[in-house]
């Protein structure tokens, strides 16, 4: 496998931005890749807005109270939950990516004897487990959020 250093960093991204919508034969992992990027960009945007809002503290107690009143509306409550759901997805899926990049979930190497056990199927079992944890945590936090 070719190492990506400064001289050959620009390997072609064959699907490009279109791959965010249609992943072709890459299937599930590619959609998780898209969601990881979308949630990451969303959380980065949220951090920026969060810091701007924090700046209202400099205006004193009344300015702070005025700004906080805006966030009591239902639309912002929905937005607040979306941030929590994005964080859950990004954190758990990020854990999966770290483990896979460090090769912890690929299984031990075996002789290529039929029926083959390839690394992709090993990963996929782990991916379903990760998706299950994400869904459970998202539903649990929704219940806590609503109550």
């Amino acid at each position: 496998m070719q190492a990506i250093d400064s001289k050959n960093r620009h390997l072609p991204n064959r699907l490009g931005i279109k791959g965010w919508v249609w992943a072709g034969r890459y299937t599930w992992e590619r959609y998780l890749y898209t969601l990881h990027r979308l949630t990451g960009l969303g959380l980065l945007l949220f951090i920026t807005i969060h810091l701007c809002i924090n700046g209202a503290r400099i205006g004193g107690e009344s300015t702070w109270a005025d700004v906080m009143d805006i966030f009591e509306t239902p639309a912002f409550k929905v937005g607040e939950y979306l941030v929590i759901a994005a964080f859950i997805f990004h954190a758990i899926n990020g854990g999966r990516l770290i483990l896979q990049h460090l090769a912890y979930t690929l299984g031990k190497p075996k002789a290529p004897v039929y029926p083959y056990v390839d690394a992709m199927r090993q990963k996929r079992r782990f991916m379903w487990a990760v998706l299950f944890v994400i869904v459970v945590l998202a539903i649990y936090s929704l219940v806590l959020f609503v109550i």
Partner: protein
Amino acid sequence: MKETRLKILQYVSGIALFVIAGGHMLYSHFSNSDITSWSSIADRAASNWWLVFYVLLLIFGLYHGLHGLRTIILEYFSISDSSVKVLDYIFVIAGLAILGYGTYIPVEAL
């Protein structure tokens, strides 16, 4: 800094954020105390432990977020090495500026 080191730092900051940002989320959204009240934020701004907590959150969050944005840009746009250097400088300056502003807020509000 080599790409591998930047990537390892991305993993380290991700793991740190799992703990720190996860704690921040739990405390902010699921605790019963009124954490957006003026007295609550003034109490936390006066505590050195909370300041360390929030500054660490800011450092790890900014590194992780800006490096992630850099990764996406490099994945989809074929840009020269010299342009990557310019991009890196922009990200470092932007990160330090946001870190400075984010740290200044609680200090100024005391």
